């Protein structure tokens, strides 16, 4: 298997907008999904004879279904405000990674077939025929967008490249050009219940082992219940939490919080996955189908509170889409009528004094916080705008004595993607992932140098997996990557309660 050389760009003292390097990432593309993977999701296995008609028909369908798609294709004026906002552009210099240029790959086809100007004066407005070369370009560059929405923050019309990328991926899937990583994983969720293909039995064993480990370390019987009917809370968490590092430390953190607060809770084997890769391929149908397991599991176990673990895009889907996709949630406790983030739950307990944290336990850590894109720009927390920024930071500040934010233009809603989101967390495109992490790494370097930061906390499973993989390329130690509930779990007082 040929793998592109992975090369991290040098970290500069000040971020510099790169000089254009046309074609720099033209060789970067993910593996194509196999025929079986595509067909399992109801897509054609491979490029059909009549692919062009099908692709245009799909585009037409999406134009009728999504106002965002239609308005965003028309509204761009090529002002250039977004051109220096994408982490993949900043890391690679490839002009097709500028948000507007990425959109234009699709927009030029839209213009050609769906607008007066493009039909009659294609050269004038940059309209182009849909050819196999164009499709190939789509497969490359719409798989170099992590749907992080940073560009949409800065666009004067709020044009969200994520919406265009999702549409492009939908069109590609409609002509059998699925991407392996996303399509294989969605297939696994349907078949087994989680992204990692972890069967219920193995899950039960894993949880038992974790209980033993916690007991050994703390002497306390902290439980990680599975499929427990009648539990008050059902926790839906990314499956990486069950055994990947550092994810698992956050899972232990959640368990300790529930234990310390005396809340009965359970995980579900039917919905042993918070991730919902349906969003990455833009498929409403897949997103709904994947999410439906959560409703089923909650009803089956009779839980009254629905809580979501540390996972960025899962939280966007849960916060912004679940009510529409799988609601109404009229069966939940009226005091908690909507799905909650585990940070909201912990924050609430902390405020009420139901749990105690000893900051000194984390005195060996100097902490910073990486805002994950889907939480920052696609969701909320706490019922106030910006709660998704203050609540995790409150938890960190309550868990440790040393906290420093990174540069203001790299956090909150201006945060940079980790470089591995949006269905790109796949090793054949590691070079892209490493380069895409550049802006975050530059900001991290600043606080490492200035304050001796040695721990970057976050609330996203993809961010955690991506950073543990790529920070070594920038000469950081991967142990500095971890979850917010890892800090909470290390600081929480067990035993002497209330």
């Amino acid at each position: 298997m040929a793998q592109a050389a992975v090369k991290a760009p040098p970290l500069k003292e000040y971020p510099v907008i790169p000089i254009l390097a046309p074609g720099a990432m033209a060789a970067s593309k993910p593996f194509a999904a196999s025929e079986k993977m595509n067909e399992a999701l109801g897509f054609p296995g491979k490029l059909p004879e009549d692919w062009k008609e099908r692709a245009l028909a799909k585009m037409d369908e999406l134009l009728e279904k999504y106002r965002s798609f239609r308005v965003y294709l028309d509204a761009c004026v090529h002002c250039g405000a977004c051109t220096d906002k994408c982490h993949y552009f900043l890391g690679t210099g490839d002009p097709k990674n500028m948000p507007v240029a990425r959109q234009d790959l699709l927009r030029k086809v839209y213009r050609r077939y769906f607008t007066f100007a493009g039909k009659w004066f294609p050269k004038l407005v940059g309209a182009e025929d849909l050819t196999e070369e164009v499709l190939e370009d789509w497969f490359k560059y719409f798989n170099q967008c992590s749907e992080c929405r940073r560009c949409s923050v800065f666009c004067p019309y709020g044009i969200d490249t994520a919406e265009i990328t999702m549409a492009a991926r939908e069109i590609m899937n409609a002509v059998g050009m699925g991407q392996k990583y996303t399509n294989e994983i969605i297939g696994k969720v349907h078949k087994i219940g989680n992204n990692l293909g972890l069967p219920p039995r193995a899950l039960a064993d894993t949880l038992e082992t974790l209980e033993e480990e916690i007991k050994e370390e703390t002497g306390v019987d902290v439980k990680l219940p599975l499929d427990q009917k009648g539990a008050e809370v059902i926790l839906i968490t990314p499956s990486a939490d069950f055994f990947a590092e550092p994810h698992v430390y956050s899972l232990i953190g959640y368990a300790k919080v529930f234990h310390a607060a005396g809340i009965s809770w359970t995980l579900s084997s039917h919905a042993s996955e918070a991730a919902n890769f349906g969003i990455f391929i833009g498929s409403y149908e897949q997103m709904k189908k994947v999410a439906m397991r959560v409703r089923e599991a909650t009803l089956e176990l009779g839980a009254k509170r629905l809580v979501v673990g540390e996972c960025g895009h899962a939280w966007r889907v849960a916060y912004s889409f679940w009510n529409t996709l799988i609601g109404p949630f009229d069966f939940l406790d009226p005091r908690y009528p909507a799905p909650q983030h585990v940070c909201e739950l912990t924050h609430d307990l902390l405020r009420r004094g139901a749990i105690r944290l000893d900051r000194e336990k984390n005195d060996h850590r100097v902490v910073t916080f990486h805002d994950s894109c889907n939480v920052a720009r696609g969701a909320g927390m706490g019922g106030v705008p910006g709660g998704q920024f203050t609540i995790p930071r409150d938890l960190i500040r309550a868990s440790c004595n040393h906290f420093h934010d990174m540069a203001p233009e790299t956090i909150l809603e201006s945060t940079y993607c980790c470089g591995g989101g949006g269905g790109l967390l796949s090793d054949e495109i590691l070079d892209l992932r490493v380069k895409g992490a550049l802006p975050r790494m530059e900001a991290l370097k600043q606080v490492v140098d200035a304050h001796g930061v040695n721990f970057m906390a976050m609330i996203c499973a993809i961010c955690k997996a991506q950073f543990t993989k790529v920070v070594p390329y920038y000469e950081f130690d991967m142990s500095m990557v971890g979850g917010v509930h890892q800090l909470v779990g290390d600081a929480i007082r067990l035993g002497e309660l209330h």
Partner: protein
Amino acid sequence: MLSALYACLFYAAAAVWLAGVGWRVLQYARVPAPLRIPTTPAPMTHAGAAARVAREVVLFESLFRSNKWIWLFGWMFHVALALVLVRHLRYFIEPVWGWVAFAQPFGVYAGFALVAGLAGLWARRFLVERIRYISTWSDHLMLALLLAIGLSGLAMKYVAHTDIVGLKEFVRGLIVFDWQPLPADPLLLIHLSLVLVLMVVFPASKLLHAPGVFFSPSRNQPDDSRERRHLAAWARD
């Protein structure tokens, strides 16, 4: 003859503009937004979201955060254009409304700001590599068209005065379908012809950003997905 030609052209251009933009706006309004996708943090209420859109339209808030140069030139151009348009109202109404008369002197100077803003925006298309890369012929031509409209307008004010009273009679005549002669001044004819082109091109061009900004889901949606379901008709089972 000339007057009749221009009168017909103006009716045609107005019809194209109205039908074209109206059709687009209808489409934007008709196509559903099946999921809540405001760029967060977002206002939680419709009033808040409306205020957010208003700030985008009036102040170009996001653009200001994004790039101060583009904001400066872009905002200058648009505000100047608004003032110039207000000033032009005096050719359509009789008697001239008080606030239009008040805006008159500002409108005159705005003509220069308009040209300066356009020049700045156009310069960026040549000088900034990234923007050069994304610029199409239509991007350049649109700026050329607007600039030519601005310059021909200024020329009539500062270089060679046109028969403004005659023009007003022509315009007033158009409105009530009682055609009056159009002064055959070359500068004026150029100015009017370019405006005709702009009106016709509008619905088929990127000028659709003007209605589009009001329909952008990432800006005009409140963050209320927790409280409300938003099932689109096509998404119902």
